[in-house]
């Protein structure tokens, strides 16, 4: 369960996230949809405590992220698959996450198998990886702790059609087993087929929320008190 309440983040005069509230529930896939610079990444970074909110709160499993004793075991996070040390091998990258979390040795090979990185590929340095391979390595890092909650920023980026199908399978299976999934995308195609609940975000504000109840989509346009005021820009 992820609960975001009245989250606002300003950088000087720029409002990157403007009074955003939504929740991602267990057993469901929640998609955060919006163009580049809409505030999706900033919202996700605030949820995992990398960026401090100007106001508002975000909780994961009922607690602030930074209060989780060993976050990797409760929340799997992939924010940017290109943000991995280029000089490390894929296997070493995963093995560091395993060490931080205190997991048994065998998990690394299990995860490499899950994301279809061959032993040979796993022994190569990340700088030689294609965007799709980095994405799969990042997803493996997110999943290695068997968390209850998954937070994936643009997980479809760099994946080919087969990769997308695979991602959809992982995400669906995860939610069906009772996990909470929150993911973001800037293209509706990437996300609509995967998500049970959709949060549409633009210029830092929530524009609409849609939920699929019994297979029927229900669209709720957001009531915006200051809708005639144009929000001031947006951040990454």
């Amino acid at each position, binding site marked *: 369960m992820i609960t975001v309440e009245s989250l606002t983040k300003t950088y000087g005069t720029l409002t990157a996230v403007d009074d955003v509230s939504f929740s991602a529930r267990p057993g469901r896939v929640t998609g955060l949809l919006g163009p580049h610079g809409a505030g999706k990444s900033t919202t996700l970074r605030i949820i995992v405590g990398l*960026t401090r909110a100007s106001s508002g709160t975000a909780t994961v499993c009922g607690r602030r*992220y*930074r209060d989780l004793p060993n976050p990797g075991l409760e929340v799997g996070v992939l924010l940017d698959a290109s943000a991995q*040390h280029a000089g490390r091998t894929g296997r070493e990258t995963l093995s560091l996450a395993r060490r*931080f979390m*205190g*997991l048994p040795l065998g998990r690394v090979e299990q995860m490499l198998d899950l994301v279809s990185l061959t032993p040979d590929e796993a022994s190569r340095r990340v700088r030689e990886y294609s965007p799709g391979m980095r994405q799969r390595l990042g997803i493996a890092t997110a999943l290695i702790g068997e968390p209850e909650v998954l937070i994936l920023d643009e997980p479809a980026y760099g994946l080919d059609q087969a990769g997308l199908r695979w991602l959809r399978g992982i995400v669906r299976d995860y939610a069906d087993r009772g996990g909470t999934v929150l993911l973001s995308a800037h293209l509706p195609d990437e996300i609509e087929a995967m998500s049970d609940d959709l949060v549409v975000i633009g210029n830092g504000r929530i524009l609409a929320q849609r939920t699929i109840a019994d297979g029927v989509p229900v669209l709720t346009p957001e009531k915006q008190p200051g809708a005639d005021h144009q929000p001031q820009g947006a951040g990454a």
Partner: protein
Amino acid sequence: MTTVNTASAPRRTTGATGATDHGIPLSRITRTELRKMFDTRSGFWLSASIGIVALLATAAVIVLASDDQLTYATFTSAINIPLTVLLPMIAILSVTSEWTQRSGLTTFTLVPHRGRVIAAKALASIGVAAVAIPLAFGVGALGNLIGATAAGIEPVWNLTVLDLVGSVLGNVLSVLFGFMLGVLIRNSAGALVAYFVYQVLLPILASTVAASQTWFRDLQPWVDFDYAQSALFHGALTSQQWAHLAFTGTVWLVIPMIIGLLLVRKAEVS
């Protein structure tokens, strides 16, 4: 692509994987950060080069030193030069790579309390120095034995334990200085350049100025941390020299370190 299997299942019960929920002990973070110093190609060669250069320096002394120079002090001072240059670079890169390589995005989500990660990096840096320095001095001792045997003279052990402790302390201060540049600058290239300016250019500049300006020569021990620190490599310090070290250390190391530690807590990993 493989089909979805149970490895991706959300964890339903705590402890199923043998892990506990009691938080991540600092010892585990430190061990992991220690591993990160050596598991990249640059990290591996950087540490390997310390050993290689220590061996080369020892060999050079055996070959080049005249019989009366063939003492333990000659070996340790030859080895100290590569140590003071290379050890701090390990500390610098340990901190800066989280920003320059952006791996901090993962590190700081797995361990959200950044202070603990930074403390672990500091402990690991000092740990590396604590192992590397005695090892290097061991190489020097071996070199002294071999050199004396080859020259047909009695080996000269002209260093006291206090001298060795001074060298260790001097090297640890260098490592902490590198660490400080890391947290203050948080960019690998920037911090390494700053380090070389400090380590190579400033001492030349300082000795040049000191050679011509009397007022600076008198002032130097009170403003030049490198100068005050280098006394540690040359025998026991007088209380005056300790005062120089404490004063310059506060200005050059402690204050910038505090600023760096305050910045690093909030610095965004872009």
